[in-house]
């Protein structure tokens, strides 16, 4: 009797696992694309937290960079007129100008964060909050004023088209589509995660950075300039947040909407923790969050058949929209105890004998 009752449930479960797997294969490219801003945001977090500075302002840095990237590209497009996109990712001069503007915005805001949290020794979480508030205000303010004249879009970077012999390969073809059929910013996320992983654990810079993040006093005694190291890393970290911002308006989309980062900067922080402060680990966590984020769309566009389809379509769509956020909470609750942050995170550094 029990066995008979179990079989239908088991049947649906097997169907569910199969469906969840098939979503990865069919939605690979979109999952990878959605993982890019999370990865880049987490890399910004790596640069900050590995050298001992909390940065919860990544969200605001992304939002401001997304806006400035779009604004600069649009302004350049207006004054230069349309130009022939290059073969290489559809690059045009306005798009490059937008990209530079986004990077500079990330740089500038992280300079503010560095100033507040390192020099002024203000609370680092407050400093991040200030950046978030100002970013929401500034982008909302300027976007409203600009929308009156409805500026034209400068378009966006084009995705790379991987050769057919790769994507047509049996079994692994979808992997090439997932990682290679992407715009330049998305692709850079993968490359940068790997490079940063190597630099952090194999280079002199990485060793020094980790020393400053774990035990700044000891680092100082062996001649490492703690303040300078933190400044450099926090400011360079802003470039990653700027790149993440560029993803929104120059790579994935081509226009700006108020509040469009929608908490991704904070999910990036969770990816950082889940990835245990390793760049490649954070990339893996970002893929997981992006997968959860794409599930709702997948169920709407490619619903499973049979009993499973009935069950999934009965769940309200808002539940799927909330899934990445819920997953973040669950993962933080389950993982944090075992995931150890750099020891000096959140603590302003004061030279011995100062004052």
């Amino acid at each position: 009797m029990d066995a008979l009752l179990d079989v239908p449930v088991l049947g649906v479960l097997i169907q569910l696992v199969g469906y969840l797997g098939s979503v990865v294969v069919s939605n690979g490219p979109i999952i990878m694309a959605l993982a890019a801003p999370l990865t880049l945001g987490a890399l910004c977090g790596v640069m900050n937290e590995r050298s001992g500075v909390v940065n919860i302002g990544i969200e605001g840095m992304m939002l401001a960079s997304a806006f400035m990237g779009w604004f600069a590209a649009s302004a350049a497009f207006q004054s230069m007129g349309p130009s022939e996109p290059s073969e290489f990712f559809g690059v045009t001069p306005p798009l490059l100008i937008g990209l530079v503007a986004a990077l500079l915005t990330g740089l500038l805001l992280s300079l503010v964060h560095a100033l507040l949290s390192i020099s002024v020794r203000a609370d680092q979480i407050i400093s991040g909050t200030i950046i978030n508030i100002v970013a929401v205000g500034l982008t909302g303010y300027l976007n409203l004023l600009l929308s009156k004249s409805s500026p034209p879009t400068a378009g966006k970077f084009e995705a790379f088209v991987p050769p057919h012999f790769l994507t047509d390969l049996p079994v692994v073809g979808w992997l090439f589509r997932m990682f290679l059929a992407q715009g330049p910013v998305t692709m850079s996320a993968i490359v940068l995660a790997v490079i940063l992983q190597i630099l952090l654990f194999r280079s002199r810079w990485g060793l020094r950075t980790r020393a400053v993040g774990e035990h700044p006093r000891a680092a100082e005694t062996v001649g490492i300039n703690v303040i300078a190291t933190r400044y450099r890393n926090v400011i360079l970290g802003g470039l990653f947040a700027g790149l993440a911002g560029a993803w929104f308006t120059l790579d994935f989309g081509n226009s700006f909407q108020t509040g469009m980062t929608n908490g991704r900067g904070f999910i990036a922080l969770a990816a950082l923790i889940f990835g245990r402060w390793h760049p490649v680990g954070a990339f893996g966590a970002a893929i997981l969050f992006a997968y959860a984020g794409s599930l709702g769309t997948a169920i709407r566009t490619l619903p499973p058949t049979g009993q499973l389809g009935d069950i999934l379509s009965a769940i309200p769509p808002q539940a799927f929209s909330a899934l990445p956020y819920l997953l973040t909470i669950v993962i933080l609750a389950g993982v944090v105890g075992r995931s150890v942050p750099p020891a000096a995170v959140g603590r302003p550094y004061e030279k011995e004998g100062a004052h």
Partner: protein
Amino acid sequence: MRRRIVAPLILPASALFLALITGAVFIVLSSPLVEGHFDFGLPLKAYGALISGSLLSTNGWIDTLVNASPLMLAGLSVAICFKAGLFNIGATGQTLIGALAAAAAGAVLAAQPAPIAIIGALLAGLVAGMLYGFIPGALKAFTGAHEVVTTIMLNYVATYLIAWAITGPLLAPGASFARTSDVGAAALPSLLGPTGHHLHAGVLIALATIPIAWWILNRSTVGFEVRTVGANPDAARYAGMRPRLLTVGTFAVGGGLAGLAGTIEILGVSGYMPAAYATNIGFDAITVALIGRANPFGVLFGALLLGALRAGAASMQIQAGIPVEMIDILQGVMLFYLSADVIVRRIFRLRKVEGGVDELATVSRSYGGQTTAP
């Protein structure tokens, strides 16, 4: 008198002054977008409209009070969490959930006698907010998940929960857009009678909460324990206090206060809740708590200041064409100067005054896991 009331106001006042100047520079720089040419008089016009819309008329004062009331409650929520060494960025979510529960309870009790309907709806909002604050508190106390990330995630979850509830089970029948039914008898009465701007009774609730919170924090045993946990969780444990319980309890009470903020907005101002209900109260509340240095009476001051800015923002947008987002910018810049008090003190040649919230050190340290999970 001078030392206790005037001294704590010097730093916020200086920060506000610097923020207004910074904002003025920004308005001039953006004036070509507003009027098509550079206009050096625009900041005066904008700030003039801001002040006349908030402080220069009876209706302006009423709007200021009505805007300040939820900020007092949500600001207290953030402030008491600060005192326990906790950073509540989740006041937005707790406010939303409180508002949703109050709207639902109000819709159900709409035909009951007013006292029953009002008390029922108030309690619903309070309890729902407490439950929503309990979640990050429990997560922090028992799993160590830092509240900075979990509360923000819960804010997003709350918006989706509301979108689902109001387009689904709570949808008012026959409404032209997605909203809950009217709260009817649960609506908070007006203090000035039916004429004039609507000064609802929720203002009294908010004002009464301030001294109560001050007394509990500074004169009661529980308040002492909360402050001890905030100042030094390890010492609190050695002294026999229960940091986990205090963390969960403080977060639940904080959530309840934020829930009340949403409740008086629904019962006092709109009378129903639309599915698209959105609020940015969480960041405002942080600003208020920081201006008030996490002291309840400081929160009152901060909430009145921000309430006045919010009340005047509409006339600033109408009369000077400056979008209301200017208030967010002013707020962020003011917080910048409050945090960088070294800079402010140098500009105004002020002596060292207590400027910050000391317990914040615990918040940041716990993020890095340096205080063992409470």
